[in-house]
């Protein structure tokens, strides 16, 4: 422990040097901007700025890029809460209750809770990264394709089990999302699937056009022409801060989201997106008032926002400790380190202690910086709600089109967003939740690839999922959830028959 403290001291001496502090600040500002703007996610932001870091030393470069990464996670919540446009795919769940809070005049509270939750989760997960990086990275390495498939299936089942509405409807939406996720070139054989001759669909449906369409565009189509369009909200200064009850309601979700996000973040795949979905589902299930979810429950903002920020730090564990990136963003950052002649891996801590501990310390500093940067901006951002809706919704549409177009410079993505907007609009009318569709689109390629890799590993034997203990345990847990739900369903049916029988007896007597 003393050694960790000494190393952290060395890290802070690096992180608090004016030059590193400056680059951390620049990274945080750019990251927040990238997160606020829909479409320009952290991957695009980091990739765009990667060449700009070539002239810097390795510590400054990695500190700035990390600042962009978690700055984008902070900023992603802003448009989700104020406009129901997920600035980043991980902010999809924040749209649901964050926007509902904003419509109730609690936008300031939602933004403040999101900022504080992100700060707490970010800081706590840096502690996790510092103390547990090597053993956790070894554990994450045991996650091969069978374990990954089991985990992804469990994630889908948890979401369906914990959704407030019918599990059947949630599963149908997840299946629809997974189907949409299979559009494009098959990764194993190169066959084009369901692309209808559109070459651009070869890469599949992007998560951003799907999410912005299902949430942002669908919301506008449903509300802009309503007999009573959303009213102009003029938040007062006293309403900008969360109430005592809101702080109390968000304390545990922030804690749970931090732990959950960090652990999921270590695993390969789109961890920060999955972490926010799972956190939302967990909070809904554990809440004493699950009926509030979807109508402005503060836990529905605190949990997912904390989880996606904690996952950001979790993603650095295998990258720094083993030199294995767990997703595309750590992969770009790994490339940035290698450009500077630094070889990440088990020897990084010993060979480059100033870089490793400087990076860790800069994450603490960056989190404080982001909190200072974001809390005063809450008052500024909520003023967006003062704009009358006839001016606000066209502006939201412009940002949606612009953000979606900017990802790949492709009009096809704009069309996908529009089709998803109409689909989301109709599904809202028919009382379906659209979030499982987004999760399905994210998970489909991962599930399919890990299934086929697992079968390739086992020469086509499905028993591989039982032979790998972690995979078997995860699948058993998923099966238990399905059986639990079936039991509840059957019991409800029996109750109904019993009530009918009692009523019949009453009538006959």
């Amino acid at each position, binding site marked *: 422990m003393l050694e960790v403290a000494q190393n952290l001291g060395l890290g802070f001496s690096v992180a608090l040097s004016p030059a590193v502090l400056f680059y951390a600040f620049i990274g945080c500002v750019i990251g927040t901007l990238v997160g606020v703007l829909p479409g320009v996610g952290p991957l695009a932001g980091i990739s765009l700025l990667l060449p700009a870091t070539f002239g810097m030393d390795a510590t400054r470069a990695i500190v700035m890029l990390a600042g962009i990464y978690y700055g984008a996670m902070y900023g992603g919540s802003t448009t989700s809460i104020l406009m129901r446009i997920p600035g980043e795919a991980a902010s999809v769940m924040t749209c649901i209750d964050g926007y509902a809070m904003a419509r109730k005049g609690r936008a300031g509270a939602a933004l403040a809770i999101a900022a504080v939750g992100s700060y707490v989760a970010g800081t706590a997960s840096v502690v996790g990264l510092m103390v547990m990086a090597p053993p956790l990275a070894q554990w994450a390495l045991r996650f091969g394709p069978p374990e990954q498939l089991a985990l992804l299936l469990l994630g889908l089942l948890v979401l369906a089990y914990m959704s407030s509405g019918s599990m059947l409807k949630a599963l149908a939406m997840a299946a629809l999302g997974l189907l949409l996720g299979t559009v494009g070139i098959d990764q194993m054989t190169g*066959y084009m699937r369901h692309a209808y001759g559109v070459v651009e669909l070869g890469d599949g449906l992007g998560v951003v056009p799907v999410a912005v369409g299902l949430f942002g565009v669908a919301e506008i189509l449903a509300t802009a022409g309503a007999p009573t369009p959303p009213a102009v909200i003029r938040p007062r200064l006293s309403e900008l801060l969360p109430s005592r009850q809101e702080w109390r309601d968000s304390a545990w979700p922030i804690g749970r989201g931090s732990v959950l996000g960090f652990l999921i973040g270590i695993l390969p795949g789109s961890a920060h997106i999955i972490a926010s979905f799972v956190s939302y589902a967990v909070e809904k299930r554990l809440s004493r008032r699950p009926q509030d979810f979807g109508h402005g429950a503060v836990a529905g903002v605190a949990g997912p926002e904390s989880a996606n920020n904690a996952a950001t730090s979790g993603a650095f564990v295998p990258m720094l400790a083993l030199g294995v990136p767990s997703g595309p963003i750590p992969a770009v950052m790994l490339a940035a380190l290698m450009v500077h002649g630094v070889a990440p891996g088990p020897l990084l801590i010993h060979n480059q202690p100033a870089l490793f501990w400087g990076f860790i310390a800069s994450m603490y500093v960056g989190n404080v910086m982001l909190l200072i940067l974001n809390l005063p901006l809450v008052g500024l951002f909520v003023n967006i709600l003062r704009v009358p809706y006839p001016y606000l919704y066209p502006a939201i549409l412009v940002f949606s089109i612009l953000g979606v177009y900017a990802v790949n410079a492709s009009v096809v993505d704009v069309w996908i967003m*529009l089709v998803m907007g109409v689909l989301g609009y109709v599904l809202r009318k*028919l009382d379906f939740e659209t979030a499982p569709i987004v999760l399905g689109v994210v998970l*489909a390629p991962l599930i399919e690839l890990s299934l086929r890799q697992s079968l390739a590993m086992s020469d086509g034997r499905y028993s591989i999922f039982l032979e790998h203990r972690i995979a078997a345990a995860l699948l058993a847990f998923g099966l238990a959830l399905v059986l639990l739900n079936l039991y509840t369903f059957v019991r409800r049916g029996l109750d109904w028959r019993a009530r009918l029988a009692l009523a019949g007896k009453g009538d006959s007597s």
Partner: protein
Amino acid sequence: MSVDRVSGIGLAALALLVLEETWRQRLPLGSLANPGPAYFPGVLALLLLVAGVALSALAGAGPGVASLSWREWRHSVAIFAACMFCAVALERLGYRLTIFAALGFLVGVIEEKPVAATVVFAGALALGTFWLFDTLLRVPLPRGPFGL
């Protein structure tokens, strides 16, 4: 007919469409031990078919389709038409002209706001967002005639 029953039928029809498309494209199904490119979409379409049929069959006496309100449909169609115009014109007219025209239509025609306010709003947003993304963030946006 109840909303859930109609939804179930719709989902089942979509699943059948996907199965038909998979068969028509002659994608190799593979085997259980070695799944081909049609295997995963096929399984998912079957799952969706089962979910759709179950939803339709289990639908009780819930609210009927006639109870759904579509009062905002004219507005929704107009907004969707403006978005379609953007998708069609973006790479032909360029970002600034397209957005200016779409905003002018939405604010001036659909929302019936004064002409001066419409022009200022549409112009400021079209030029402002172009400057932010294209000039400042170096995200290339399409240009139209005369480099506009």
